């Protein structure tokens, strides 16, 4: 599954995302690396962008980017999809 499919409040571990693209270099530098645990905190009222918690701070990104980030749902995440 990908980050955009996560439900609000669910945590997951980042598995992989595209190598290329400025957005992804920056997301890595902001601390989103394979193996990093993230939590989807909320979705903006109009459905985009999303807010996640990573390394103790809050980051917002658009679903178009989030959809390319592969994650593995952690623990008792309700089965999405």
């Amino acid at each position, binding site marked *: 599954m990908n980050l955009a499919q996560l439900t609000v409040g669910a945590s997951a571990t980042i598995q992989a995302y595209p*190598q290329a693209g400025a957005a992804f270099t*920056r997301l890595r*530098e902001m601390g989103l690396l394979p193996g990093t645990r993230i939590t989807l905190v909320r979705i903006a*009222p109009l459905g985009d962008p999303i807010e996640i*918690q990573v390394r*103790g*701070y809050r980051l917002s990104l658009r679903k*178009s*980017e989030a959809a390319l980030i592969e994650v593995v749902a952690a623990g008792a995440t309700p089965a999405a999809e």
Partner: protein
Amino acid sequence: MSTTSSPAPAAPRSAPVYALVGNPNCGKSTLFNALTGLKQKVGNYPGVTVERKVGTAYTQHGQPLTLIDLPGAYSLAARSPDEAVTRDVLLGRRADTPTPDRIICIADATNLERNLYLVHQVLDLGRPVVLVLNMMDLAAQAGLTVRADRLSRELGIPVIPCEAAHGKGLIELKLALSRPDLPLPRHAWDIPAPLAPAVAELQASLSAHEGKGPLVARAEALLLLTDPDPVRVAGSTPLSAATTRILESWKTRWTADATDSSGMLVAARYDAIGRLAREAIVPPAAGTAANPADATLALSDRIDAVVTHPLWGWVIFAGIMAAMFLGIFTLAGIPMGWIESLMGWLGEHVSALIPPGDFHDLVIDGALAGVGGVIIFLPQILILFFFIGLLESTGYMARAAFIMDRVMSRVGLNGKSFIPLLSSYACAIPGIMAARTIEEPKDRLATILVAPFMSCSARLPVYLLLIAALVSSDEVPLGTQVGLMLLMYFLGTAGAFAFAWLFKKTLLRGAPPLMIMELPPYRLPRLRDVAWQMWERGAVFVKRAGTVILALSIVLWFLANFPKPPAASEGEPPVDALAHSYAGRAGHAIEPLIAPLGFDWRIGIGLIQSFAAREVFNSSMGVIFAVEESEDETANQSHLRDALRGAARPDGTPLFTPLVCLSLMVFYVFAMQCISTIAVVKRETAGWKWPLFQLAYMTGTAWLASFVLYQVGRALGF
């Protein structure tokens, strides 16, 4: 602000240069203001629209030092012009700025891990670094114990715990700055083995061809491998051909064997940072909080649950925007009234001192009116930046962008364009200045280019006059008035969004804009920093844009008054004087151009004079149609309206037919007729290219819209 005790023994050596570096939202500006006090200079880096702030600070022993406040950056692998300037100054790639001797890094102690990423890159440079851990109080509240001493031992550099907002830790920092022998960082981390040959080769090339010292060359090599295609800005020394060739060959090789150099480097750096963070941060004792971050964010989360709520979020957003808009629209009117009466009073007094004549008119109607025309904008600018400062320092600005992003992304802009555009309904000047809160340069430029389409308050009197002239009854029905007015506001707004979309599709196309935005925890605003920003914006406006506005006002005054009519007899009506002036002649000259819109040369004069400020159209019409001025404002208005209704073309048909009034209103919606806006766009985009483009495309749009309206209207028999 300086605590000068005893000046240092006369040292002719020039002051050492320090750079202040840190992430956005970590308190960097607060620290800079605390260290430099009023001794700051604000300018631009040549060729880029990035603001350069340099100040003088003093060490605890009173030696002066030059402090450069580098733009906030998350990484030196730059993704915005701001970050590119920070990178270039630190790497010594800007000829216009000295390479800093020493670096002060500031990091948010509540969010140490991510903040250390930039610090880690700076440490690579091998220059003396002082690390300031800011917001130690907030970290403690969150239950985090951040051990500065351990971090200092690990890195081998001074690490100063600090609360810049309360002035705590400043003395310790200034004592560290006093040290003549700052140690070099003890900084070693493991570069992934597959990348080591590339780092070595690039480092050697940067040393040989760019003349960089070994450590700076290595740091730059690492940045090039992190992001092989970083943002470049004007004024930055480009890479040599040899280095570029090496970089390209490695890129090709890695693309072929799918080596993720960037990912490996960032991961290796975060590994090293993770070790540092484990050493420095003592998590809260077991049982207090499961996750320290949750404690920090608990209050922010409760606020956010309301502020980004599908219903209440919009109510709050609308409330804040309405307060801000009313602030600049109506509240600013009070001090603007004072400024007007002050300028009037000043005019009377100066008028009495100078004998009547051209010089008298130049001083009163040219220079003094021009100065008034500059400072009249200050109340709106100050009020808007008061709100922006408040919204930014509390953290709400990021939430506003968060909830508005979806709407603005439809036309290719991002959520941060909303406030500049909204402010432009009051006046495009503060709106355009507010666009500096948009980091993405193309989004910022697109916002600036379309902002003057929003119907500003200077257009209101013109709309009101033309609506009054358009409707035949004495009292304009409220419905008609409101309906037409709303139509004009709608047209302008639609134009702004349409052109923003068009520009983002064509002229300002590029990689899709990043919307990777930190949502900082809510904090109490620092009123001193807010006041400082207001003062700074006001000063920048008066100094940079004010001079241009003043000069252009005097030119406009000259055009409207010279040459004088041949025999200036006493009883001559003023209409002939204006008609004889350059402005009058220009009105005649552009008549063929504006005739297809239904305008004659007299309206042409009004259009030209509107460049001083759009509402000048009304007084211009008053002069042209020889309306007697009286003390009574409403009487003036109705006289002017009657004069317009009575105005006729040479063949006797009325000039201001309803169709011409509409066509003229539409022209005012779209046309860029404001020298002050031109001056501010010139200042904000650092050159004449964009304001002139804007003047051309907006006026072209206005012409086309009025042309279509008038010609279609005529064809339909109006």
